[in-house]
């Protein structure tokens, strides 16, 4: 990633990507608070994915940025200009909606050229630019078709081309892949990222699918109930979750009881370092990733806190998830399939936990994916 990516205008002149700053954004619907004093800054050319469950405020954030809704309070500054009270039509942003946004009575070409038409670009230039954009998304052969003749994935590409055709300062994507088939989703996701990098445009991407968010974002913002729980690069969000909500929302977690002493936590016989070294001593619930749980070496004892019976083996392709009953708890281990081949329901296994830094929480709150506590 270059330090100041440029977007290319139709004259070939370089244009710097812009910074997007949202400060103190709040929005409520009646008694329901959708956003509570949100602060979020997008660096020029960056792609931030907002991730969270329904109702967390991610879509609201996007729509406030787009100008489709008014904030109750707060400011939005794009490229140094205050856009808080500017109408959506004048914000110069391109948006891709979840579905249905292509104009059905216009051809693909006309759809893509629509924004340019509004800006009174002359027909020849319009057409050229439209084709350029269609090329970028790989659909120049479909230029004269109608939206209903295209597949869902193709429609979304056209939507992307249309949004980019006007050379917006910011690109907004509102769950653009949610309505598509799984396979198309993965393909298009990578396409979108490729195009975004090529064009170098500051982008906000909203999704509820963590895989998407982790795969394409420069930074991921995990939201919950109108707040930003963590904003960090994907790997950090995954391996150093800031709160238990993030730990449990992103990826799977085992919840195992443990005891903290002097900056380490002992979980079922394994001593593991803590993410937060100054956690007070005491009993806690440790959140442990399935990939951190591995098979113990052959020389392990026949019994112990991490010895148990396999309940199920779920084949996931390259890896397999093995659920093991430890007697008073169950735990999920994510092993490479080759390691898991000898295991089946009923076999005895001994496990161990890799000493990665671990997040603990004092409250045995619900919402976790793995397991029950004794």
């Amino acid at each position, binding site marked *: 990633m270059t330090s100041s990516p440029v977007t290319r205008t139709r004259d070939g002149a370089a244009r710097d990507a812009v910074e997007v700053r949202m400060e103190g954004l709040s929005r409520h619907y009646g008694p329901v608070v959708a956003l509570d004093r949100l602060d979020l800054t997008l660096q020029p050319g960056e792609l931030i994915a907002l991730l969270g469950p329904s109702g967390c405020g991610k879509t609201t954030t996007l729509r406030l940025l*787009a*100008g*489709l809704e008014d904030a109750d309070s707060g400011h939005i500054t794009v490229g140094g200009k205050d856009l808080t009270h500017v*109408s*959506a*039509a*004048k*914000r*110069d*942003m*391109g*948006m891709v*909606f979840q*579905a*249905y*946004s*292509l*104009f*059905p*009575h216009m051809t693909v070409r006309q759809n893509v050229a*629509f*924004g340019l*038409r*509004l*800006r009174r670009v002359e027909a020849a230039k319009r057409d050229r630019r439209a084709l350029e954009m269609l090329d970028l998304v790989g659909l120049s052969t479909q230029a004269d078709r109608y939206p*209903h003749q295209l597949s869902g994935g193709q429609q979304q590409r056209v*939507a992307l081309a*249309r*949004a980019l055709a*006007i050379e917006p300062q910011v690109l*907004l994507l509102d769950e653009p892949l949610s309505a598509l088939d799984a396979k198309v989703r993965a393909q298009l996701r990578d396409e979108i990222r490729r195009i975004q990098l090529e064009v170098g445009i500051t982008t906000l991407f909203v999704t509820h699918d963590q895989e998407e968010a982790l795969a394409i974002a420069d930074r991921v913002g995990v939201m919950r109930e109108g707040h930003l729980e963590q904003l960090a690069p994907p790997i950090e969000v995954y391996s150093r979750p800031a709160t238990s909500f993030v730990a449990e929302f992103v990826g799977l977690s085992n919840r195992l009881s443990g005891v903290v002493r002097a900056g380490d936590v002992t979980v079922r016989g394994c001593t593991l370092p803590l993410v937060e070294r100054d956690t007070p001593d005491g009993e806690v619930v440790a959140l442990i990733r399935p990939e951190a749980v591995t098979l113990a070496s052959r020389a392990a004892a026949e019994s112990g806190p991490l010895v148990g019976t396999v309940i199920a083996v779920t084949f996931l392709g390259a890896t397999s998830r093995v659920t093991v009953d430890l007697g008073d708890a169950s735990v999920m281990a994510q092993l490479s399939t080759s390691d898991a081949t000898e295991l089946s329901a009923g076999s005895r296994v001994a496990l161990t936990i890799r000493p990665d830094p671990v997040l603990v929480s004092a409250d045995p709150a619900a919402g976790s994916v793995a397991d029950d506590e004794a």
Partner: protein
Amino acid sequence: MAVAATTKTGARPSRAGRRLSAPAWVGTVPFLAYVAIFLLLPTGIVIVDALKNPNGSWAFSNVTELGNSLVRGYFIGSFKLCLISSLAGAVLGAILAYAIASGDPDGAVRRLYLAASGVLAQFGGVTLAFAFQVLIGPTVGLLFHASWYYSFPWGIALIYTYFQIPLMVLVFLPAIDGVKVQWREASENLGASAWQYWRYVGGPLLMPAFLGGLLLLFANALSAFATIQAWENQIAYIVPQQISTALSSEVGLSNVNVADLLALGMVVMVAIVMTGYALLQRRAARWLR
């Protein structure tokens, strides 16, 4: 288990495993027979008699009678009245439909207006004429006395719009509902003002449905008879009235053929209009499903 193809009258399925071996479509025979006798047969009679001479021989040239100035006058009268009332009904109905659609989808207002539209679209005829007579007629005129009340086509057109508007609402509202919010938002996001949205997106999308509604209203007005007859029955302005005169006049059999001819002319007109309507509806449905 007796599996029997019962007829629509619900003849009891035969027990003890005996099967009725009639094909399934036999069950639709009562309906088809009914429609054949009471709809297709009369229509056929009209068409056939229109093309026959009083003495019973074929006379396709009768059709040219439709061109004579007197008959043309009735058709023109019908056309004028239908055009005015359907244009007014379509435009006003579209505005009302828009007002209804832009509100709370489950709200009381919407339900009230929809229910009212259902009833008022049917409220025509004699009683409607009475109502307007009392409201703005020259003799009673509780609201005021409209000197133009008995003028053709304006006076009667006003009365026609009373049931044309609700009909338009019923037909056009689903189309407006079918306009997706995302289209508005996407065009806004691309820089369109409200006016530009309507000009480039909303308008074109709704146009087929609007024109379809207009045609339906036109056909509806063409067929109307009771309202205008109650309004003013001394002068025949439109085709239905002339048909009525032809039927009830006692001047020999020749008038029956006139009635048939006029009826044929009407059927052709309505058929053309309804075909246009069906085609436009299909286009509208494709975009606005």
